[in-house]
């Protein structure tokens, strides 16, 4: 238990080891630890941000879905309305057309009747003239006369 040069030797060794540790060993370890700390912090922040974004996206999707539903029902009701309109239009057009056809048919019938009447008139007068002619020609033949009359009568 003598105090001797070992004291100084150990002091020197201590100084050398501490210096070596400070210059060579410590800085890389600390740098790596700090870097890892930063990485972890960044990662956590990133995760937080991602979560927030997801939430936002979900909200956006919900809103879009609601909008789409609204639009679909709008389109549906519009289509319904348009269909009704088309049916109504078609109905009125059909009725008009029917009326027009009916009227045309009435006019045709009347025209036909008038023409028949005209024809009849001309024929009656012709028959009357022919009858008179025959009567005048064969006054003496009573029988013949009778025949003509009969014939006339049948002709009417």
């Amino acid at each position: 238990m003598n105090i001797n040069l070992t004291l100084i030797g150990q002091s020197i060794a201590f100084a050398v080891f501490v210096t070596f540790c400070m210059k060579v060993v410590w800085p890389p370890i600390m740098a790596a630890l700090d870097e890892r700390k930063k990485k972890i912090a960044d990662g956590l922040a990133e995760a937080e941000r991602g979560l927030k974004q997801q939430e936002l996206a979900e909200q956006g999707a919900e809103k879009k879905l609601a909008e789409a539903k609204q639009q679909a029902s709008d389109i549906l009701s519009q289509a319904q309305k348009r269909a009704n309109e088309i049916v109504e239009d078609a109905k009125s057009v059909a009725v008009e057309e029917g009326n027009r056809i009916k009227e045309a048919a009435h006019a045709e019938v009347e025209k036909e009747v008038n023409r028949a009447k005209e024809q009849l008139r001309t024929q009656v007068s012709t028959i009357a003239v022919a009858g008179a002619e025959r009567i005048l020609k064969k006054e003496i033949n009573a029988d013949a006369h009778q025949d003509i009359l009969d014939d006339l009568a049948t002709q009417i």
Partner: protein
Amino acid sequence: MAGEITSSEYIQHHLTNWTYGKHPDGHWGFAHSAQEATEMGFWAIHVDSMLWSIFLGSLFLLIFRKASKNMTSGVPSGLQNFVEWIVDFVNENVRGSFSAKNDLIAPMALTIFVWVFLMNLMDLVPVDWIPHLAGIIGHAVFGVDPHHVYFKIVPTTDPNITFGMAFAIFALMLYYGIKIKGPGGFFGELAFQPFGKWGMPANLLLEGISLISKPVSLALRLFGNLYAGEMIFILIALLYSGGIVWGTIGGFLQLGWAIFHILIILLQAFIFMVLTIVYLDMAHQEHH
């Protein structure tokens, strides 16, 4: 193992360092007995203490250097994980106790903690293994009487080692104390408190003692704990020469003391580190 030597000779043998120094007659050489080692005075060096101290310090730096070279900020490997665990622990302590900014403190705390721990750890190696081996080698290779081969393997049971570190730390305390506070501030702290400037002699005495007591207590605490611990191991080892019953008791005692001693060696390394940090923090602070 004690052989033909007596118990006190056995203990004495275990407490003597392998010393190289200047003999009283002027020539340099190894001491062949405790007597000769004492007669060498200051001009001698404990070869075993220095050897183990430097070997363990280099081992520490080698392992940590290897880890720090392959350091990655990604997933750490086994060694890196272990090193990071220790570095983090030390760094936490430095940050907790040391308020100023100084890049020297944390690496120094790490060095002290691991190095002192490794030196203390040698205490757990059964006390006869390595000295006995050294005796055999000394006898076979150098032809020396094995009883004159001294080989202490726990550097921290050598007061030179603990005082060597404590004085280096004391020098740093003085250096930073004067650097941060200025020579006037440093002297003022010693002279003008706690009794004001009229009590200067008393102040100087009190503060001077408190200043000197820091490195002394730092060194003696570590030395005392480890020396006492080793002494108990040596006493337990003596039981082995007392027959099978005493030997069995000694085995259990050694096991029990070794388990308890794990706590002590770790605690003493930790205390040495923490006190170093605290003392240097005090040197960095301007109190008044």
